Every structure is written in structure tokens, then in C-alpha cells.
């Protein structure tokens, strides 16, 4: 079986190679012109792209997956079962439409589409766990059952320092009064009851407060499921090494059985989430 994800995946190029995840690339455009992107971009290259996005006069956007890319990747694995894992269908309905269309055009292939119902770090943490389980020999219905369980127990939270981009691309609803205030408040966003839809979960003045809130939510989720084990993935773009290291340490200090990684955000998330954010996706394990 082969696992196929898309370039909104936040894993490092090395991890992607190690886990043999096939990645479908979303094309990226700057002011209507194609911009060269790949999962192997260095941090410096990502920072250059960040600079372009930070200039709000530039219109940086992604477009749907190319049908020919999908054909090419899926056909390459025609002799295997193909598990294609995608971000929330609600937030990426065009992607899902393309996936379903191409799947219907390739009836001879064994393709399973899996909606993680989450985005960015919370999407990635699910792909990561599926790929690890597969590497350890899990397959078929057993793997799908695990993925469904993980999906149920995954939450997404994040600090977004500039809501302009989320608003421009419609990832959040109405404008919040907290934008551009003298108090420099950090909006905190998190997954809502609706799959893939982000909502305001509070505010913070400092990253320490933000991280305490996130860890508090993790503690509540663990307590609610009487669990102690958690897989967490933190992704960041912009100068937020200090913030993300603090979050990782805070999680590790809680005494849980926690597997936490900090990653540098890949390009496809940037036009939507913006050039200044860090987010946390975590899955609580009931075992």
C-alpha cells in the first residue's frame, strides 16, 4: 500500500522520504505567476517566500491539484492499494472534487480517499501516524480503523499573529475586533465542532499565555479520555522558534507520554495561514 498526501503536509523532506509518503504538489502563484515550490525547499527558501507573502500588495495563492499530476502519481502505483489522505473536505472542496473526479476516471485502480477533517499541523499529525503505522506493518481495515480513531481524537490550535491572510482566503469568518489594536493581542484559533472550520478560542497577550492555554486544552482532552499518551506536532513559519520551543517544553513538562516534534511550515499553508503563525496538531491516544 502506498500513502499519498498533498503539499499542505508539514513534515520535513527527510521524514517524507523515510516514511515513503508520496506528495501531490499544489501549484503556487505570486501575482498570478507560477512560483517554484517543492517539498524539499530549504528554510531560507521558505523565508524568501514568506517575505513575498508578508508584503500584502502581493497576491500569493494556491490552486487546486492538477488532474494530470494525480493521474501520473496514482497510475505509478496501479499495482498497489493507494491511500490518499487529504485535508478537511469542507475547507478544500475543490481538491476533493478533483480527487473524486480522477478516481472515477481510474476505476481499475484501488484508491481509498481519507478526509482528515483537519488542516496544517492537525492534518500532518494524522498523516504521520498513518505512515508510521504502515511502516510497522499495519494495513487494510486495521489501518483505516486506526486513522478514524486518530481523527476523532485530534485537535488543532494555533496562534495567528495576523488574521489578514485567513480572512482573505476565507479560513475564518467575520473580522475580529482584536485586529490591529494598540494592545497587540494574539488571536488564538482552534478546531470547532464543524470539521475543518477554525474558530476563535480566545486571545493572549504573550506566547506564554497562549501556550498555557493550548496545554490546558490538551490536559482537558487527555482527562476526558482518561488517557496519558499524546502525539503532537508543532509547525511554525516566521521567527517563532522561541515560542514553539516553549510550547514543546511545556508539553514535555506535563509528565504525559508525549511524542512532540517542531517543524518548519511547508509552502502550501503559507498563503492561507499567513507569514506569522505557529500551530499545534495533537492526537490523544486512549490506549
Amino acid at each position, binding site marked *: 500500500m502506498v500513502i499519498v498526501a498533498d503539499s499542505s503536509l508539514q513534515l520535513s523532506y527527510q521524514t517524507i522520504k523515510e516514511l515513503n509518503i508520496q506528495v501531490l504538489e499544489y501549484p503556487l502563484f505570486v501575482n498570478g505567476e507560477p512560483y517554484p515550490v517543492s517539498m524539499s525547499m530549504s528554510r531560507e527558501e521558505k523565508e524568501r517566500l514568506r517575505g513575498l507573502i508578508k508584503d500584502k500588495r502581493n497576491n500569493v495563492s494556491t490552486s487546486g491539484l492538477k488532474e494530470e499530476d494525480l493521474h501520473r502519481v496514482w497510475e505509478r502505483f496501479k499495482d498497489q492499494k493507494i491511500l490518499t489522505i487529504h485535508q478537511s473536505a*469542507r475547507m478544500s472542496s475543490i481538491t476533493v472534487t478533483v480527487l473524486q473526479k480522477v478516481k472515477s476516471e481510474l476505476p481499475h485502480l484501488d484508491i481509498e480517499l481519507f478526509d482528515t477533517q483537519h488542516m496544517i499541523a492537525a492534518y500532518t499529525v494524522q498523516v504521520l501516524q498513518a505512515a508510521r503505522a504502515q511502516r510497522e506493518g499495519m494495513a487494510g481495515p486495521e489501518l483505516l480503523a486506526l486513522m478514524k480513531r486518530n481523527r476523532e481524537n485530534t485537535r488543532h490550535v494555533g496562534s495567528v499573529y495576523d488574521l489578514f491572510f485567513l480572512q482573505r482566503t476565507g479560513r475564518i469568518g467575520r473580522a475580529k475586533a482584536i485586529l490591529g489594536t494598540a494592545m497587540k493581542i494574539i488571536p488564538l484559533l482552534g478546531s470547532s465542532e464543524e470539521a475543518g472550520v477554525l474558530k476563535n478560542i480566545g486571545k493572549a497577550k504573550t506566547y506564554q499565555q497562549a501556550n498555557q492555554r493550548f496545554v490546558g486544552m490538551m490536559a482537558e482532552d487527555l482527562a476526558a479520555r482518561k488517557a496519558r499518551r499524546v502525539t503532537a506536532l508543532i509547525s511554525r513559519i516566521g521567527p517563532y522558534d522561541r515560542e514553539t520551543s516553549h510550547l514543546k517544553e511545556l508539553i514535555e513538562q506535563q509528565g504525559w507520554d508525549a511524542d512532540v516534534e517542531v517543524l518548519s511550515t511547508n509552502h502550501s499553508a503559507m498563503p492561507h495561514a499567513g507569514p506569522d503563525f505557529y500551530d499545534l496538531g495533537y492526537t490523544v491516544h486512549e490506549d
Partner: protein
Amino acid sequence: MKIEAIGVPELKRSLKAAADYLFLNTRVLDNLNVFPVPDGDTGMNMLSTLKPAVEALLDDDAGSCAAAWELLSEQANKHSRGNSGFILACFIRGFSQRLDTDAAITAELIRGGFDSGSYAARSSLLSPVEGTMITIITAMAEAMAETESKDVLELLRAGLTLGRVKIFETPRLLPVLARAGVVDAGGLGFIFVIEGMMRGLLGAELQSEVEEDYRFEPDLTVPDSDQGKLSFRYCTELMVEKNGELPWPELRLFLEQRGDSIALVREEEYLKLHIHTDTPEEIRAKMAELGTIVSSKIDDMEEQINASFRTLQDHEALSVLAIVPGSGFKSVFSDLEAAACLEYAGRLPSCGEILEVLEEMPSENIIVLPNETNIIPAAALAQQASGKNVFLLPTENVVQGITALYGFNAEDPPQQNIRSMGDSIDLGICLKVYQSSRDSRYGSVEIKKQDFFILRGAEVLAVDASLAETVERGLTKLDLSEAGCVSFFCSDAFDEAYTTELEERILRLQDSLTVEFHYGGQTNSLLIVAVE
């Protein structure tokens, strides 16, 4: 059942059913309305256009279908309202032009009428937009053109079938619909009109349409655009009896420079204009140069949009009332989404004053932040006396009030908010700095006249003749390892010359801290310090 020709009685029955079908489903159309502006009136506009025209027809003794349709066209033009009503009236006018003196309407005449109506509707628009009613009318006309049947019902069915397919393609053509997760309301309204006509001919029951059938998951990946946003405020419609030749294309340029959603019907004797503009009076003056204005209507769309959201915002939403010790805190709390602030200076507010503000607030669900220990009893009394759902979160100082609002989300239920706001109260520490006006003793601490002292609650943390020294020594008593920011809220008595030294001293204590100064306007303390 097969119908090869429609006489006047059947036409009347059919059009009455069309108006009734529209009436039955007006609310569905209003709720789906997002383009050209989301003012929630597509159904009402189409109904206001068709219903009086049909009523006039029912009262008339038209001897032929051509005469009946002519009357319908005249009345629809007279009563047309809004973008959708205007286009519907244009279609009816175009349809009537294909009927000469025909006593009955055949399938052939319906084919021609749709073709002509489609052309009239499209050509009335200065900038036709696909994914709207004109797309649906054109598709239905094309479906009929390809149907060779002489059966009127079969023809209408063919048009409706393709129309109902095409309506679900409108979000692909018009991104604002995809983002909102709806089909085009005007196009759907036109389908309802034809559906009603067919049911009227069949004598079939009219049915309520289900709004959810025309909604789908909003596609938020579609880039936001200005579509569906209010570029111009006033929906302006004018009917003019012409007094001469039309200055074209100068008029077109004039209109395009002053608005959008422009539709213009140019008949031999009259003009009818629909435009969204910010300068309705200028438009009116220009049109008056072209002839006599026989009717006009100006709607404030901003008011219409606000009205459609007001009920939820004002009554159901959860609001916060913050009681603040100075005018500067108003903007701080307002930035944090407090709906109202009760400011006091020196004298603490009474229960009556708090109650008065609670009653003035439009919301029925209010969380009160007293932000001062001594105000909590008065706030509790106001909570009991108010007829509204008032929740009291007993914040003891403004810093607790500020951090409590970090946990506020107006979309969550009150109890969830009380919990998350309560969890946030301890995210900050409040210190207050005073300057003594005379020699005094505070507990066991002696304070000389003009000395500065800093308090945490009732505890004196430091006393000194230097303000910066007092603050620095006070802060050293706190564990700053998890702190990220020190914010000073300054009174009018605070001398801004101190800011540099204060900032330097704090950064010397911990260089990762952020230091901010805001105007607080409080009268009882020199500085309120928030350590977060």
C-alpha cells in the same frame, strides 16, 4: 396530458400559480440571496414585480394572450423592484415582443418568447454577470430551442430540467456563491416562476421548496473577492418618459462611473433604470434631463443588510459590560470585545448606575466584569435586579478583567464563557503604584510624603522616593520566569519623562520582556501595572 395551445383563461391560471409559487417560497429565495449584495430581498423583489402584474391581469378582460401578456409586461415594468425584479420584468417584456396579436400561445410561440425574453434580459444589463438569473434564462431558452415538441408542457419541462441542472452550476460561475455555499437566488426564483406556471397548467399542487436543497458546504478555498460586497449604498430605480433621443454612449459612461449592477431598458417612449450608486440624487438629476420622471425608488442597502443581521447581534448574542476606572480603559476593553464600559472616576458606581447601563445594552445576555473588589457587591445587586440574563464574573481588578476577556468568545454559550474567562483570570498580575500626598503608615510600612509605593492587593511590595526604583524593586518580588509583558496603564498625573527609565530598568531585570505604556486615565493610582 398534452397541451398544444394556451388560451387566456389557462394563461391567467398559469400566471396566478407562478405568483403563488413565488409567494410560497419567497423566504427561501431571500435567505439564499448573496449577489449582487446580500440584502436578503431577492424573493420579495421578484414577488413585488410579478404579483401586482398578475393581479392586474386577473382583473382585466384581455381578449387575446398577446394583449394579456402585453398588460403583464406593462405592469411588471411598472412594479419591478431590485435587480432580480428588473431582470424578470425585462424577460416578460422581451417575451411579449414575440407575441403579435396571437389569441393563444403555442409551443412555437413559447420557444420564440423565451429566446426574445432571454435577449431582452441580457441586453438590459450593462455588464451581464454569468452564474445569475440571465444564465438560467438563457439555458432554459436553449433547452426549449432544442425541443421540437408541440406540447407546451413538454417544452416547459425541458426548460425546467436544464434550468434545475444549471442552477447548481451557478456557484462555479460566480465564486461568491461558492464561498457562501448557495445557488443563485435570482436564477432559482426564475425557475420557481416557470415551475409555478407549469403546475398551474397541470392543476397540480404548489409545494414549499426546501432551502437546504439549495445549500451546500461553503467552499472557503475560493479566493475572496469584492463580489457580494456592498460597493455602493443605494439601490436606485427610475422610470422616465423620454422627451427625445438618448445621448448614448455618454449616458452609459456617466452611469458606469457612478455605480454598478446597472440595467437599463430603452423603449421608444420610456426609459427604466436600475443602478447601485452612492449618488442617487445626481443620477436622478441626470435622468430628469432626459424626460419626466414618472416613478422612482431609492433603497438604502446598507440598512437592509444590517437589518437582516440585527436580531441576532442585538438580542441573542452574549455581551460583556466592563466597569473601568478611567477613560483609557474603554478602548482597551472595547478592543477585547467588551460591548459596553461603565467608567467611574474616584467614586465607585452604584447598583442603580450599573443597572441603568445593563438595561440600555441591546443584548439580553450580559457578563459583568466589576474589575474592582469594592464594586462586586453593587454589581451582584444589579445582577439580581435586572430582568436580563446577567452573569457576574467577580474580577477584582482591571488586569483580571483584561485577561478574563482573553477567554471570551461571543459565539459560545454563557456558561462556557464564564468557565473559560474564569480560567483566564489568573493569566496576569495587577500591581498599583501610588505617590503619597503626606507622611503615613500603611500596615507596618512607613511612607513619607511624595514617596512612591507599589501594592499587590493589600501588600506593599516596595517604597522609594524614586518611581523607577519602586517599580523595579516591586517587580523583583514576583516570579517573572513565565512573564512576557509588562504593561503600564498611566493616569493623567504620570509624567511621561519616566517611561524610558522604567523600560530600561525592567529590561535589565529580564531582557525578554516586552514593555508597553497605555493611557488608563484612572484617578486613584498613578500607575496600574499588568504583568503577564
